[in-house]
């Protein structure tokens, strides 16, 4: 169960990334999962190839991924402001493929592991033994959530980003630098995703292609919690993670991956607004 | 002039309410259109005029009330079935098919009248050729009616704005509707184009027997061609009557105060059913 929640918080963080970009631009960034992958892979690279200390490697990985997010926005999203949804979907798919391809070229197809942040000795608590890494994951996730909540609710930049998603033109007219907000949203999403990837890597290993599944499950988390609701995304991620580990014990771990998608399909068909969402982005 | 009392109304909306979340866009509105009439729906911005059109065509969910068309209850009918039943509309923001030529746009308007199935299309049977030829004929007839016949092979998106409005009109009449709903057909047209539009709308009713309901802001147009006018404000019916009566109605004038100076002109008096 704890492992389910642990993995679930990564889904939640990925979903959070989706939410941030969606809230500012209305776009679903299919490449979100790749940010998570990059967080993990780059951390490994900086640690092993450049021999940097763990913390530095992770911070650097997060910053590098943030830069990638900025480049994506600047060079592939901003030029096509008026593209149709299908065009944007295909472009972000293309981006995710390119990132994956570059990762494969640079680091091959192997899986890598990050060392756990504070050792391997399980901690006995609540009648179960918990990996210390799980505590790190849950703790950092919580911190990020609180930080983002404060940012969106209290800071002027956060509110400006929300304004952009409600009405781009109106935001522009009241002086919001819409383009900067969009850029910021991509950077923050990349940052959040990368941190998620880095903190999960010690437990679930990382490889060039674990972005696809993570991205999809993150999206499922997003929908479950209601597209547009950051806390919903986090909660959705935890729920999916819990359901996965529960179902794996119940039916078979082979089909574990399918659960998230079945949940996703079910949600899309029956209640696209999810558990806590506003019923916007309605079906035609 | 058709006498309303003698014939049952073609379109009858009773107590129609439409709700969007917490906002009541239409509150128990009555709206009837007599067969063969040109009925106008006017009111300040946000009064709910387009919402009423959406409700009539099935594009906005009805919270309460009944809509009857030619005697049948269409309240629960999906939009395309209402079109097949004879209720067709044009759109405030043009919705022409920019990925087709002018002729194809109008042929699509006649979709429900062209009768052949998939197998005919795939195997190119005689029935396909007959029906397509008929469809082209219908479409050309409509294009000639609105004056766009020469543009038949142009990409629809390349037409000047005024002609695109005419194209939507042609597409609408190609469906051989009994009731044609026009959503601000004069928006963006200059005075000359608006006058021509008014003449065209009258011809549609006179020569093709189509009943017309139009939502409009241009008072010259409304006053000159309408038989009856319904005024909406804040989602409710404010007044109903002939153009002359509406122009004299103090509530209507108050609602429009400062909005449209042309409403004071004499120009509208001509067509009024006194």
């Amino acid at each position: 169960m704890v492992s389910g929640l642990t993995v679930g918080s990564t889904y939640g963080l990925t979903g959070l990334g989706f939410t941030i970009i969606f809230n500012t631009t209305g776009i679903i960034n299919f490449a979100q999962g790749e940010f998570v992958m990059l967080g993990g892979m780059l951390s490994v690279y900086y640690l092993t190839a450049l021999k940097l200390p763990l913390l530095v490697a992770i911070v650097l990985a997060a910053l590098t991924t943030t830069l990638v997010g900025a480049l994506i926005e600047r060079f592939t999203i901003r030029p096509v402001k008026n593209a149709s949804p299908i065009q944007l979907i295909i472009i972000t798919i293309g981006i995710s493929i390119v990132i994956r391809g570059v990762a494969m070229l640079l680091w091959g197809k192997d899986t890598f592991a990050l060392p756990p942040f504070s050792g391997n000795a399980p901690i006995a608590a609540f009648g179960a033994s918990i990996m210390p890494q799980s505590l790190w994951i849950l703790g950092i996730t919580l911190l990020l959530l609180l930080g983002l909540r404060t940012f969106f609710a209290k800071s002027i930049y956060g509110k400006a980003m929300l304004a952009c998603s409600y009405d781009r033109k109106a935001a522009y007219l009241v002086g919001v630098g819409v383009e900067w907000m969009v850029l910021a949203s991509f950077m923050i999403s990349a940052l959040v995703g990368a941190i998620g990837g880095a903190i999960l890597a010690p437990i679930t290993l990382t490889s060039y292609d674990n972005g696809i599944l993570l991205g999809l499950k993150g999206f499922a988390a997003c929908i479950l919690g209601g597209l547009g609701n950051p806390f919903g995304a986090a909660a959705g991620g935890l729920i999916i993670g819990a359901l996965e580990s529960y179902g794996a014990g119940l039916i078979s771990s082979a089909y574990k991956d399918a659960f998230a998608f079945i949940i996703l399909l079910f949600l899309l068909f029956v209640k696209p607004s999810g558990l806590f969402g506003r019923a916007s982005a309605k079906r035609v | 002039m058709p006498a309303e009392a003698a014939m049952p109304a073609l379109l009858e909306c009773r107590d129609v309410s439409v709700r969007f979340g917490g906002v009541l866009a239409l509150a128990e509105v009555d709206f009837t259109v007599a067969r063969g009439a040109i009925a106008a729906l006017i009111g300040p911005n946000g009064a709910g005029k387009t919402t009423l059109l959406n409700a009539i065509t099935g594009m906005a969910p009805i919270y309460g009330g009944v809509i009857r068309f030619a005697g049948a209850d269409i309240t629960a009918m999906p939009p395309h079935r209402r079109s097949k039943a004879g209720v067709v509309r044009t759109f405030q923001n043009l919705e022409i098919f920019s990925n087709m030529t002018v002729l194809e746009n109008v042929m699509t308007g006649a979709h429900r009248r062209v009768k052949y199935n998939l197998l005919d299309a795939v195997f190119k049977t005689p029935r396909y050729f007959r029906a397509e030829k008929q469809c082209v004929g219908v479409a050309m007839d409509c294009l000639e009616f609105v004056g766009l016949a020469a543009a038949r092979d142009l990409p629809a998106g390349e037409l000047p704005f005024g002609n695109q409005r005419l194209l939507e009109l042609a597409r609408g009449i190609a469906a051989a509707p009994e009731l044609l709903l026009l959503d601000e057909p004069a928006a963006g047209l200059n005075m000359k184009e608006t006058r021509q539009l008014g003449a065209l709308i009258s011809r549609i009713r006179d020569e093709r027997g189509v009943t017309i309901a139009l939502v409009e802001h241009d008072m010259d147009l409304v006053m000159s061609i309408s038989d009856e006018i319904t005024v909406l404000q804040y989602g409710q019916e404010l007044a109903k009557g002939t153009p002359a009566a509406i122009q004299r109605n103090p509530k209507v004038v108050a609602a429009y105060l400062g909005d449209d100076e042309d409403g004071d002109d004499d120009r509208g008096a001509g067509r009024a059913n006194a």
Partner: protein
Amino acid sequence: MAGRPQKGSDVAGNRKNLAQVLAFATALFLAPFFLPNEYYLTVLIIACINAIIVAGLNLLLGYAGQISLGHAAFFGLSSYATALATAKFGLPMELGLIIAVGLTSLVAFLIGIPTLKLSGHYLAMATLGFGVIVYIFFNETVELTGGPSGYVGVPRLKLFGLVFSSDRAYYFLVAGVLALIMLVSLNLINSRFGRALRAIHTSEKAAQVSGVDIGKYKLLIFVLSAAYAAVAGFLYAHYLTFIAPTSFSFSFSVALITMVVLGGMANMWGAVAGAFFLTALPQVLQVFETYEVLIFGGILIVCMMFLPDGIVGGATRLLRFLASSLKRKQGGADAR
């Protein structure tokens, strides 16, 4: 996405379509005689099979404007269905074909009803999710599908007494099927159904008021595109006589979309060209294998950003522009 008018919907266009298909079929039938060796025949066969799927996907994505990121699933369902029917249950191939196409179409129908009510990102994600679920199913249901190591022992195609044991014979069959599919598709487009599809793509509201039942048409074209993929899956299984889940993954779904995009959406011949080009390219560029993923992604991005009509469309636009500048003296450029 729906910009210039697409292929005409007029009666004279029918003759043009037929002529084009005949020319295409002739080119296909002559091709083997110009190939340096038999290996390229395999490439052509696979290219034709891919083109059949892409034709259907083009109808769905290019004409009706509905995106499907899981079409590999239909391709795979059909392959496995016919493999099981003919190898495991010993049924004749004709029955295998019916079962494969029928089953796949049924699945498409059932999944299409709720899915096509969605639009935009939701539709994309739903089709993606569906594709992944089916892929996981192929991988994990080992007793049925043989799991990741694949299913061996699919009999080589034998239809109505004819055994297609040689590559050359198989090629002519597949090429013939492709030509037939092209004719069917072009005829479909050049009709009220094609107009309805294009209308749905541009403005669902306006299509509805013109009497088009958009739900029915979207479902129809979705199932049809799945049926095309099913036919391709049948031909694929009985050619390779071995199938594995990796051929039916998300990567293949993306490759299919890339072929449609490259060919210029809503351009049937473009889609075929896209399929042939992207199937043959890995063979021509040996290094392609390593960079394959990158190149596909790059094509998607570049095409969507700068060439919405794809390469074929861009080239056509160029030719059109040249032709109209020459014709300007005669007055009025032909928009067709």
